[in-house]
């Protein structure tokens, strides 16, 4: 894997006078699970959206497997988006359509426009979609409408759609922020398993420290659009966390936690190896 898998080079995004992402530089050499943490407004979402090309960058470069992703246009850009799945905090499914159809949307880029307009997906794809749903434990909901599912189930449908894309990289923008602790755990477990079993790179924005520690191989901390930390979970001490969150001494890690049992604990839990 000599050359870098993904190289983000001085990537910058400004909204008017406001610099949302400021010369972010990250290099990923092998598939791994990366967590990005930071305060609200730190630029995490903007960074991921630039990777997926949902938002155009201002300057800098993203190179994936030697290809300049930031320079792509039209059909090529869409082909890259098909290779780079994105999972959203609000799931961004089509709520009135059934689960399988939502998953099948992952193949839209590969299908002719006309066939897809009439919702004509090949049977093989339908089977694969159901297999993926089965892998995520929600196959029995296949014929239901997405809106009829709980948040955690919907997020798993979104993951299934991402898997349906057979992507080279999966981006997840706060995938568990709208979920209760129980569902959050299921979703994070699923993402981790996808990384481990399929060997895909997963980059996830996370708003809680302990989730990042628990699931990620590498943690990147952002503050005011800049990358202020990049290391292993073990290197992420409370002091470093305080810097990232720009918090004062009253910062308590539990305050950001959504993990089950956090309320019952009085001592910090031992980090669980990912």
């Amino acid at each position, binding site marked *: 894997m000599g050359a870098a898998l993904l190289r983000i080079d001085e990537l910058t995004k400004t909204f008017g006078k406001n610099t949302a992402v400021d010369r972010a530089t990250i290099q990923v050499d092998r598939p791994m699970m990366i967590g990005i943490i930071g305060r609200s407004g730190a630029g995490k979402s903007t960074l991921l959206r630039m990777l997926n090309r949902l938002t155009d960058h201002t300057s800098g470069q993203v190179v994936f497997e030697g290809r300049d992703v930031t320079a792509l246009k039209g059909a090529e850009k869409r*082909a890259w988006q098909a290779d780079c799945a994105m999972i959203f905090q609000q799931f961004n499914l089509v709520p*009135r359509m059934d689960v399988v159809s939502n998953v099948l*949307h992952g193949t839209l880029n590969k299908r002719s*426009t006309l066939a897809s*307009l009439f919702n004509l997906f090949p049977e093989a794809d339908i089977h694969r979609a159901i297999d993926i749903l089965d892998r995520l434990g929600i196959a029995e909901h296949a014929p239901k409408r997405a809106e009829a599912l709980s948040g955690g189930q919907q997020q798993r449908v979104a993951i299934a759609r991402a898997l349906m894309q057979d992507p080279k990289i999966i981006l997840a923008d706060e995938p568990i922020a709208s979920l209760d602790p129980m569902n959050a755990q299921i979703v994070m477990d699923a993402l981790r398993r996808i990384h481990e079993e399929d060997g895909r790179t997963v980059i996830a924005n996370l708003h809680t420290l302990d989730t990042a520690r628990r699931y990620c191989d590498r943690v990147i901390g952002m503050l005011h659009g800049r990358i202020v930390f990049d290391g292993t979970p073990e290197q992420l001490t409370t002091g470093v966390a305080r810097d990232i969150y720009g918090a004062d001494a009253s910062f308590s890690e539990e305050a950001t936690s959504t993990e089950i049992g956090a309320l019952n604990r009085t001592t910090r839990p031992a980090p669980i190896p990912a």
Partner: protein
Amino acid sequence: MTLHADPMTAQISLKDQADRLFRRKRLTSLAIPLVVLAYLVYAFFAFDVPGLIDRADPENGRTLVRDSYSYKTHVTRDNRSGAVSVAIEGERKGAYPEGTSPDWVALGSGSDPVTTITLDGGGVVTFGPDQISYDIPGYGLVTARPGRTGANASFPEGPLPEWINASKNRVAITTDEARLSITRNKTELFRYSLGWELFFFTLDSPYHGMSAGDLASRAVNGEAGEIFHDFWTNAMWRHGEVAWALFETVLMAFLGTFGAAIVALPLAFLAARNFTPLTLVRQLARRLFDLFRGVDALIWTIVLARAFGPGPLTGALAILVTDTGSFGKMFSEALENVDGKQIEGLQSVGAKPVQRYRFGVIPQVTPVLLSQMLYFFESNTRSATVIGAITGGGIGLLLTQAMITQKDWEEVTYYIVLVVLLVFVMDWFSGWLRRKLIKGDAGGH
């Protein structure tokens, strides 16, 4: 603590504040009804309600109400030839064949030339060869010898009651049971009876006056076709044509509403901010919608009648044009309110723009659009009644025409009942369809 230096004064100022608040509230709560009242009083005089009440003719109302549930039989004598004829509503198609009459009329014949009419309240009217008489219970005998010199009527002693309207050439007597008018040329008696006469069969049908049981047994014996034919082509009520008219009304609403939806959908994209960034195009589309909407369907009807002539198509097109305006506006609002997250989700998988519309926009707006269309379909059924009155189609024409001639109130009642039932059915049907389609999967497949 400095803020509450003196709790007493703080509280007093609070009370002042509250008093002020309530004075203001009292003022508004009094002012609004007063303004409304003042406006209504102004309108009362602007509309000249006192004059109207003064002029309103309750007799017209009574005629109307009575006509709506009863019919009158005319017994007419031509004072020159002496011929007597009997006809329901005085119409040719309701005429009794020569020499026949209802049982309360004893027609004169060669030996006894006097026609005797026996009324319910005990009154007896005779049409003799020279003399007409009306024996009014509780009043007396009125006689008349109409001829060139006038009606020549004579009344019992005393002043004329107000229900007798007599002049030299014309006498009109209105009692509860009948109305008799005598002029030089003609003597006519109207007798009111309950019901919608000849509703099922006219006099020339063999089935007239038959009981339901008889009809049923005849229907079973293979006469069902004839029975239905006689009913359906009833010259007095014309059930067949009325049914056609109802159908035409629904047809106008149907074509107009859904045609408008088909035209408006693409235009709505042009008028939606998030789909058409070009301000000029957007404003153009919106003003177009305003024009279509602002001109009422009725006026479009007049405009279109020149090109298409009278008929249901013109009505349907008028509805189509107006509703294109309404739908265009509402659809574009619905499009502006679409949830961007779904579209973004599709964008993130690399979907083409058309695919994004298909899966990100259409499923979202379909239920909104569909329910709007069905609402309009229902209310357009009602509008089509009015439009039909102008373009010459549908139940509306029958209704307004029957009203304008101001005599066939029983037909008016019949049509109103039909219109109300139709609107009820459409209301129920559109509600049912809406629930069915929107709960079912309207978006996905």
